[in-house]
């Protein structure tokens, strides 16, 4: 609204008032209002006639301005229709325009619109993000599929070895899918693994299960002592010494260990070729990679709120009672992690099994030591227990190095098999437990 419009409206209103109504009529129109006011002003002094005139004038002016405002509003509404109508009209007109244009012109218009959209900064950001996301998912799926393939390849290879017949070994054309199918290799590999004892599989599982339990107990106690029962200076120094056992490679101590263990028994127990050697080692906190487990437990017990322990103490619990009834039940996540890893590592362990000479049939032949036997051992076994097969195949295949490799690979698959089956049951635990242990920071 400009000033000119305002003036025009004011003039037209004044003219209308002059034409249609006199001042009295105007005052009549406002009678009710004035009456009300008079009632309100009853208690006040009555107005003089001059003052009355002034008041009437003021009222008239006010009425005119009011009318002016109303008119102006009406005019505005007439001039500018509702916004919804505008959009519709424009759209209709655009469509009409487009219909009238030629194809080239229409394309040009579309291109212009696209240019505007393309340069719009918010749309640009949204577009970029979406493109990145799509590219990322495609890239990720490719990488993951490739890596999964790489991981599964050796397993698939071993499966392929396991299901091919022994005579296929000299066949150059057999790479993945065998020409003759048979499970003969599995049978031979099984007899090779159980060469020293009939219960090799059970031995391995039994040893690692018991070691797992012992190791959980020993490392939890040590971890608790390191975390909460601190002795000044001593605890920290000793903890770093324990971590040092990780940094010193086991293999560099083999000579000294084997000589020392033979020379001096551990509390009157000779460890070499003793079934309990591994249990004793685990019980004294020096089992297979025990330092990692101690570190894990220490880190976990540090994270448990001190108030829990203090409340137990206030209730009259001693140190052992606090540890057993309050701390251990809370450390379920750490216990699961330690248990899983200690079982798996013990099952796959080769170093200690050879150090303590478990391979003797009188001691405790394990899968790992049986698998890593010698060629001559395998040949003698093969010649005694598979006489008919050798006659069938001929001596050359039985003496072939490749055949020995085939059996070793099948044996490796057999050794993995219990773990694979167990893994697909506890896989979830495996991944999630370490997330729940809450190891953060050194």
């Amino acid at each position, binding site marked *: 609204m400009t000033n000119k419009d305002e003036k025009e409206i004011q003039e037209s209103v004044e003219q209308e008032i002059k034409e249609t109504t006199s001042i009295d009529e105007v005052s009549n129109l406002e009678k009710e209002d004035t009456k009300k006011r008079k009632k309100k002003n009853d208690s006040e002094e009555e107005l003089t006639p001059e003052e009355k005139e002034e008041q009437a004038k003021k009222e008239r002016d006010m009425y005119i301005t009011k009318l002016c405002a109303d008119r102006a509003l009406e005019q505005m509404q007439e001039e500018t229709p509702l916004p919804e109508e505008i959009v519709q009209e424009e759209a209709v007109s655009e469509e009409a325009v487009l219909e009238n244009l030629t194809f080239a012109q229409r394309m040009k218009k579309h291109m212009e619109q696209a240019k505007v959209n393309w340069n719009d900064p918010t749309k640009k*950001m949204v577009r970029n993000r979406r493109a*990145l996301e799509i590219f990322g998912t495609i890239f*990720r799926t490719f*990488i993951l599929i490739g*890596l999964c393939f*790489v*991981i599964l390849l050796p397993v698939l*290879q071993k499966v392929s070895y396991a299901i091919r017949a022994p005579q296929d070994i000299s066949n150059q054309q057999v*790479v993945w899918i065998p020409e003759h199918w048979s499970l003969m290799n599995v049978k031979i590999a099984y007899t090779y693994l159980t060469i020293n004892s009939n219960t090799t599989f059970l031995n391995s599982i039994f040893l690692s299960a018991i070691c797992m339990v012992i190791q959980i107990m020993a490392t939890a*106690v040590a971890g608790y*002592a*390191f975390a909460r*029962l*601190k*002795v000044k200076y*001593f*605890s920290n120094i000793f903890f770093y010494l*324990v971590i040092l056992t990780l*940094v*010193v*490679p086991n*293999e*560099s*101590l*083999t*000579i*000294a260990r*084997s000589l020392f263990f033979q*020379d001096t028994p551990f509390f009157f127990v000779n460890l070499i070729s003793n079934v309990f050697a591994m249990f004793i*080692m685990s019980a*004294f*906190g*020096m089992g297979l990679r025990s330092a*990692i487990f101690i570190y894990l437990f220490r880190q976990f017990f540090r994270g448990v709120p001190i108030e829990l322990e203090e409340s137990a*103490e206030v209730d009259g619990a001693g140190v*052992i009672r606090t540890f057993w009834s309050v701390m251990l039940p809370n450390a379920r996540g750490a216990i699961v992690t330690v248990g899983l890893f200690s079982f*798996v590592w013990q*099952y*796959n*362990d*080769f170093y200690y099994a050879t150090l303590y000479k478990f391979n003797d049939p009188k001691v405790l032949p394990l899968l*790992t030591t049986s*698998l*890593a036997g010698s060629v001559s051992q395998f040949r003698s076994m093969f010649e005694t227990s598979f006489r008919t097969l050798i006659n069938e195949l001929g001596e050359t295949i039985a003496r072939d*190095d*490749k055949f*020995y*490799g085939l059996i*070793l*690979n099948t044996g*490796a698959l057999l*050794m*993995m098999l219990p*773990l694979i089956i167990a893994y697909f049951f506890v*896989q*979830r635990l495996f*991944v999630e437990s370490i997330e729940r242990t*809450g*190891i*953060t920071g050194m």
Partner: protein
Amino acid sequence: MNKIKKALHKAKEAVGSFFQKIFAPVKRWWHKVSQTKFMQKVINVLAFIPRKIKGLKNHTRKVIWGLIFLVPLMIGFIYFFLIPFIYTIWFSLSYVYIRAGEGLKSEFIGIDNFKYLFNVLNITYNYESIPFTQYLVQVIILIATDIPIILIFSLIMAVVLNSKFKGRALVRAIFFMPVIFNSQAIDMAVAAIPELAESTSNATADLFNQMFSFKEFLTNANFPTWLVNFLSSASSRIYDVITYSGIQILIFLSAIQSVPRHLYEAAKMEGATQYEMFWKITFPMVSPMLLAAAVYTVVDSFLRSPMVKTLQTYDNPGKIIEGIGELGKVVDGVHQLSFYGAGAAISIVFFAIAAVIVLVVLGILSRVVFYYDE
């Protein structure tokens, strides 16, 4: 799945009832035995320390309990680690021999064992005989390239495995399989007859090589040769890298899970991209675990390095006759060296390198590490 769950539940119950059946009579028996006079005496003796401690101050009581809790670990540490470690150091400086009836004997000969290692010894590595120092350099290069590759790879994989996508559970299951199957015995079994593995892997690898030769592509694109060698070795050792990085991925995953969610939310509100969020939030928050992962990587890659094979040949002197012949010679015309002594010297060198690499890695990484609390 439901059937499997039901079966598992039944098995659990069966195992539980089985244990109850076993333990109920044991408990009854223990209750009877513990009431006898002899057992009461034994229990009194066992409870001597706790009773003595009970009257003390809270702090001193805790210190004593801490020492008691650590006693088995101390015994184990001294017997299983410290004494063998000192033995190894002593052996490396002496001539060791075993005589019937007398047992182990050793004579101090100074650093002659190390002189022998660095001046005389040749070691077969990659089918060729090379001096010990050269061999050491090669092993160190192998390990030093392994560490960054494994750390970067496992960090990236942890981020990928943490993001949500279809089939994540399966991919995770497959990725942690190497942690389970990584056994020295299996490695040895597979490596025992290399021709067999080569016959299949060649057939598959040829196919890829014909399609796309990575190394040739890079050299044609004028990349510097050291970079080409590094990248091609990394890509050809991809299987090793994956199998060695299982634990590190687990460590990083747990670290990423413990990063406060609100940091990411704030970054998202400000319009940060995934890439920016990784460098500005995930990496600094995960960096403390970088130390643990790096130390584990160093230790682990040492266990798999060719050094271990060399040591294993020295561990069992009876196995290799050539070595004994070589060691039987009089070195420097003064001292005779024993097999055990030379092996111990190799062990010490091995350990020293491991310690130095760990310290260097810690020194480098401690500059990158960011602590949220400080």
